């Protein structure tokens, strides 16, 4: 009898740990779990991650200020009047982001952070309408995170040079 209970206990422990290992999956409104694979997160600037490499030896400073010695290349153009670094980056755990309720999240889950303000966009992104998916229309799709396309510090799309205009249809016949 004891062995049976033990077996059941072990079974559930294995099941729970297996569930914990399943990566976070996004669901569409239809509730259908699609074969979605997250693209590798966008690269950080060189030698900048993990942030704790430098920050672990520094005294955290929660005071809102303009950064001067480091990260001065980041110009915030994202509701900069009301926000600053520590609204998204965590003061205590520098390698994480935090939601408005204080919950820590990884950089790979940044869409949860963005979705706090951009709710309708998050909904459309989850349904594959906003943003970009590649791969199979009837199978495995690779999806991109918000930060793949939008610089979180300055999310507006930058203008780009268009590819060449088509040839004049009268080319060679004038």
């Amino acid at each position, binding site marked *: 009898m004891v062995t049976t209970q033990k077996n059941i206990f072990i079974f559930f422990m294995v099941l729970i740990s297996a569930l914990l290992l399943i990566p976070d999956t996004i669901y569409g409104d239809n509730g259908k779990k699609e074969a979605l694979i997250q693209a590798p997160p966008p690269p950080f600037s060189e030698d900048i991650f993990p942030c704790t490499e430098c920050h672990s030896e520094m005294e955290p400073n929660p005071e809102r200020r303009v950064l001067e010695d480091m990260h001065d290349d980041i110009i915030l153009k994202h509701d900069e009047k009301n926000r600053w670094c520590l609204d998204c980056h965590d003061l205590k755990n520098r390698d994480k982001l935090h939601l408005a309720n204080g919950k820590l999240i990884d950089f790979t889950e940044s869409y949860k952070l963005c979705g706090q303000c951009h709710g309708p966009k998050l909904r459309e992104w989850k349904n594959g309408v906003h*943003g*970009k998916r*590649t791969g199979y*229309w009837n199978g495995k799709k690779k999806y991109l995170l918000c930060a793949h396309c939008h610089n979180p510090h300055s999310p507006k799309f930058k*203008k*780009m*040079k268009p*590819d060449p205009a*088509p040839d004049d249809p009268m080319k060679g016949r004038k």
Partner: protein
Amino acid sequence: MSNNKIKEKKESRRTFLKKTALASTFATLAACGSDTSWDEFFQKNFKTLENDDKNKIIERLEKKYTEKYGKKFTVSGKDPIDDTLFGYGLDISRCIGCRKCVYACVEENNQSRDPQIHWITVLEMAKDKGVDLFHSNSDYDRELVPDDDHFYFPVACQQCENPPCTKVCPVEATWKEKDGIVVVDYNWCIGCRLCMAACPYGARHFNWSEPDIPKDEVNPETHYYGNRPRYKGVVEKCTFCVQRVREGLYPSCVEICPVGARKFGNLLDPDSEIRYILKHKRVLVLKEELNTQPKFYYFY
């Protein structure tokens, strides 16, 4: 004039006619180009053939293209996937007019570089005029896009459910497949260009000369109705990348779009992205009044 002489004359005329007939036959065959084989010249309409005959044609084409381009070519004859009707969505509020799709399409689908053929035309439209084809411009050449006063409207084949182009073809060289893709049999097309006149979207293009595709850029993964190299004197058009979508892949314009404005999926699957768009977004089709019933949906 003696009887003998008349006989001689009659014989010589007959011989002359015989010779002329023979000569013209050979001349016709020769005029079809030195790379046209007997089998190719007498090939029947592809869609009417049994699988055995189709496979023979495909084998012949693969050999021919492999020799011509020095790369291992595959020509697929894959039939439509069951219960599939393809639909396309394009978010005109996202498109920035960068023309990345135009050139990705050229490379994927082996369009001629010179004379240039583009299956996608990106139209630039003034924001204060709205969707207005008359005032649109396809050869905008700006330093940077998108321009603040304009929006962009890419047009390719609309894969109509009620296509005017297939109805006018005098030889049935173009038709709508079960999965909704309008295709052309390049070997059956006679190049009369009636379909081009019938298409209200300017989506069909004519090979005025032998297509020029650089050997190092040619895409050897092809489909008979899709991106296999075409001939001089035939019409071609967008096929939603039939060689990709019948394998389950997205069309190459969807894959390249840097802003994710292009969407694609199965209209018969209620959970597909394209059905979500039709249900939740503001959708328009181009030249709705013509009742062509495009399966290319613009939304915003």
